[in-house]
């Protein structure tokens, strides 16, 4: 009861707090049924996959053993998790009169098992979908994508082509780092006198970010060749094509990376500029020694993200006849009437992207830790 201004306030009715114990029995039974259905669907899908295999002898037996084992594991695990959920719910109901705390714990455990069933069911259904997909049309789909003979025939050519992709993106990445910074510094050039420079930078960035990369590639590579644009006119054949392609990608990605740089430069608090200028450093010196080094540290993660995009976009260079991996894959595919080489080429990109992606994640985590006061 509160004493306000000498008047005793009438007591408010106390709020009745109910702490019901949720046994979650209904959901547990539903989880058990869901799990069993998912297991059944998976079993059917894997059986169809087996029927479509079209191999004979020992290989077929090996597949049979493997698929049966997989089906068994999926079924047992899903049934077990579902049963445990039901068992915990029943236990919770039984414990209510004796021990409310233990009953609540059992109810919570039942919920955990339900989530296990949910997650594993989804996994099993994805597996089932893949099996259905790869066995569609008696395995014709699978043959289109996963013809090991075709992939095997393509592999030596794949490495030859992909090495060219790697060379292009490594050179392009280095040039993009420089070109992007130049553009970003022009974009934030200070003062009234800097207005034309800023305008040019904005125009460039708008243009090359807005232009579909593939059009830029067409225009630069084919146009520069046809027009004998210097300094490329001094180069010959493959070297010429390599540098034209790299230039096209640098033009496109320079615009993206410039914006990343700009965000980084603008994220450095003005007090750093004030401190540097107050010591007598010029604007250029402040940028060079104080602002840019701090900005670069901050933008490494988004920068690497753009680099992943750049690496993939080297495949676009196939349209102007660079004999990179996609072009070679397409040639092999057309000859064999099979798409598997294309899939293999795609996998090569994934394989080279994953380490970079994980490295980016690691950097982001490390920075988050540092900000949290590491």
């Amino acid at each position: 009861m509160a004493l306000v201004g000498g008047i005793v306030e009438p007591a408010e009715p106390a709020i009745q707090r109910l702490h019901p114990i949720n046994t979650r029995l209904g959901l547990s039974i539903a989880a058990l049924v869901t799990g069993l259905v998912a297991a059944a669907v998976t079993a059917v899908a894997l059986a169809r996959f087996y029927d479509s295999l079209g191999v004979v002898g020992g290989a077929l037996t090996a597949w049979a053993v493997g698929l049966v084992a997989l089906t068994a594991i999926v079924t047992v695990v899903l049934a077990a998790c579902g049963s445990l959920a039901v068992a915990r719910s029943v236990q919770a109901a039984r414990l209510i009169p004796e021990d409310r705390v233990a009953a609540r714990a059992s109810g919570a455990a039942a919920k955990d098992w339900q989530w296990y069933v949910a997650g594993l069911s989804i996994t099993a259904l994805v597996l089932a979908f893949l099996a259905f997909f790869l066995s569609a049309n008696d395995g014709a789909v699978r043959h289109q994508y996963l013809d090991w003979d075709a992939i095997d025939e393509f592999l030596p050519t794949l490495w030859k082509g992909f090495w060219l992709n790697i060379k292009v993106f490594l050179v392009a990445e280095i040039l993009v780092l420089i070109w992007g910074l130049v553009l970003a510094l022009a974009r934030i050039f200070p003062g009234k006198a800097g207005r034309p420079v800023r305008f040019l930078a904005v125009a460039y960035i708008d243009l090359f970010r807005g232009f579909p990369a593939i059009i830029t590639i067409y225009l630069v590579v084919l146009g520069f060749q046809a027009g004998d644009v210097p300094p490329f006119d001094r180069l010959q054949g493959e070297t010429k094509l390599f540098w034209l392609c790299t230039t096209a990608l640098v033009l496109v990605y320079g615009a993206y990376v410039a914006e990343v740089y700009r965000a980084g430069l603008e994220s450095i608090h003005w007090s750093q500029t004030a401190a540097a200028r107050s010591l007598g450093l010029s604007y250029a010196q402040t940028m060079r020694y104080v602002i840019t080094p701090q900005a670069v540290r901050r933008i490494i993660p988004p920068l690497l993200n753009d680099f992943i995009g750049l690496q993939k976009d080297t495949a676009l260079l196939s349209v102007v006849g660079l004999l990179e991996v996609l072009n070679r894959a397409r040639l092999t595919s057309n000859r064999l009437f099979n798409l598997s080489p294309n899939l293999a080429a795609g996998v090569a990109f994934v394989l080279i992207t994953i380490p970079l992606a994980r490295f980016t994640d690691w950097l982001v985590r490390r920075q988050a830790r540092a900000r949290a006061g590491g």
Partner: protein
Amino acid sequence: MAFLELEGVHKRFGTNQVLTGVDLHVDEHDVVCLIGPSGCGKSTLLRCINALEQIDGGAIRIDGEQASGRGVDLDGLRQDVGIVFQAFNLFPHMTVLDNVTLAPRKVLGLQRKQADDRALTLLGRIGLDAKARDYPDRLSGGQQQRVAIVRALAMQPRLLLLDEITSALDPELVSEVLNIVRELANEGMTMLLATHEMSFAREVSSKVCFLDGGVICEEGPPEQIFGEPRNERTRIFLKRIIEAGRL
């Protein structure tokens, strides 16, 4: 002629008139303290003297030379006028030593060896030479602020501006910073400081200026300002300070 002269200095941010005609004289070897309520323009005034903000009216002269408006060599001016900020503003990506030597090397053109030696001597004076290779985030607030002072001193300024340099510090770290300022005052460094440390202002300053409403309402020797303030607003301000137990 005073070393630093301010004449009718005006400064506004948008429609907000921050300084409305500040007149101030600082003689060589003077220590002048600016006191006044929050938002009265103490920091802005210091930043104007160092040309980190452009003034909208009036004039600033340093050693008789025009230090505001067009045609002023700002980088040259700032070599003579050092400033230490409330939030230290050390460069986080550089070691303590590089923080101190950056400007001497890049602006004065000192060789690295020479700049390092000078910086280490200065750091030694404040007992931080052992931290020379550490990054600022390894230092306490008080240590960071002492490094910031040394960074400004490394340019051998003729005038040092101190902008509430102890406001961001934990109370027990304040004295280590103030001791350095006290030493500098004894050595004859010309200083203009905005501060909320009234006892310190009373002890160290040769002149105290009370700033309020964009003008200097009252100025005089510390005994007079703190002992028998004449201006009504000064009296109200100091009464509040005393009520808060800060004087």
